[in-house]
């Protein structure tokens, strides 16, 4: 039996009939066609599926699409205006904060929440905020440096 779902993603309303067991990450990727958000572990641990659900980061592989009906979701695609990169995207580029790039959408969405709550985080605080995001390539040093640089560019230090 399908259920109606309506979710506002990056400011645009997406509605559809889905099975109750459909996960939010699949609604984002398949119904909305926004494939920036990845599925990595699928066991709630790696964070590459991280999106912002009503303003707070969530692992979208561990939320049902129907649970999010009526909510607002922001994904990596919503971060830039399509012309200029967001300071976090710019900084991940400058600081080599990515190699394969698979973890990057989740890293950036989690970092965005951190900088909103704490504009000038220490390296330790950055690591703590990214505890739920796993990277198999970079060794994290450059990710932390990228978030530091973005904080500076956004007016923090």
């Amino acid at each position: 039996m399908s259920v109606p779902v309506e979710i506002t993603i990056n400011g645009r309303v997406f509605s559809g009939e889905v099975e109750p067991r459909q996960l939010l990450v699949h609604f984002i990727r398949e119904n909305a066609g926004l494939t920036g958000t990845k599925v990595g572990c699928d066991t709630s641990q790696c964070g590459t599926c991280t999106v912002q659900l009503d303003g707070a980061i969530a692992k979208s592989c561990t939320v049902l699409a129907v649970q999010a009906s009526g909510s607002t979701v922001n994904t990596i695609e919503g971060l830039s205006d399509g012309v200029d990169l967001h300071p976090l995207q710019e900084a991940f580029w400058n600081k080599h904060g990515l190699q394969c790039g698979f973890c990057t959408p989740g890293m950036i969405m989690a970092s965005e929440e951190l900088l909103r709550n704490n504009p000038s985080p220490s390296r330790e605080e950055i690591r703590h905020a990214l505890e739920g995001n796993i990277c198999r390539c970079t060794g994290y040093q450059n990710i932390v440096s990228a978030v530091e640089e973005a904080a500076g560019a956004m007016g923090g230090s």
Partner: protein
Amino acid sequence: MFPSQFTYHRAASVAEAVELLNGNEGAKLLAGGHSLLPMMKLRLASPPTLVDIGQVAELKGVSADGDGVRIGALTTHAEIAGSALVQERAPVLAEAASRVGDPAVRNRGTIGGNVAHGDPQSDLPTVLTALGATINAAGQNGERGIAAADFFTGLLENALDDGEIVTSVSVPGVASGAGTAYVKFSHPASRYSVVGAAAIVSVANGVCSSASVVVGGVESTPTRAASVEAALAGSGVGADALAAAASAVSGDFQGDAMGDVYASSEYRQAMAGVYVRRALEAAVARGG
């Protein structure tokens, strides 16, 4: 991975949730979904019906309750960690909530789901037992309170009757002057506690006047460290005295210590002594 099929209901109130739960054979509540959905994706659980309580406003929030706090079942770990009232009246609970999983897990997971799930690797059952909290439940026969010490009855088992839901948790305020601490050994991938230790310690004239010490992660339910508490009663609180008291914890495990590929039961028990010592040191340092 997908869960197997189920019917979905969204409840608007506690009364409606109780009705839906009782009217659908095998139905399960869905709160933050951060214990239930992973189990359903692995097909370790396949409930035919889910009753989503995620939008029930009356289950959310923290309020003052006598000298303690009352925390709605749907309050998230992030909200508990950030609550000024919890930080002031039961700082050890705010500390434990701030160490659950990672930031995304803390944004979704709720105290009601955490206690109802009863995972031995969880943090809140350990701390709520140490604090002497009460779990408030509602069902078809009305409401009742269950002491945390009686609530956790086994691995993923609790004292709720069928069709009962957790509505809130009442936490007594910590006595003024008492020092508290929660320390944990986080699993490196999931951040669940391999071992967690909660300590609430009062000191008068350099001597321990009361102590509540509870360990999680070793047995299937929180272990009250009665031998440690007895060793502390009337004892000094210097480093040697605390270390000696902490080592008594080995006498508190009743032989059902758990082990897995990551940490054997012997290792967990050995680490319990270390983490109890650290919790006692931190609690004593913060008291006064």
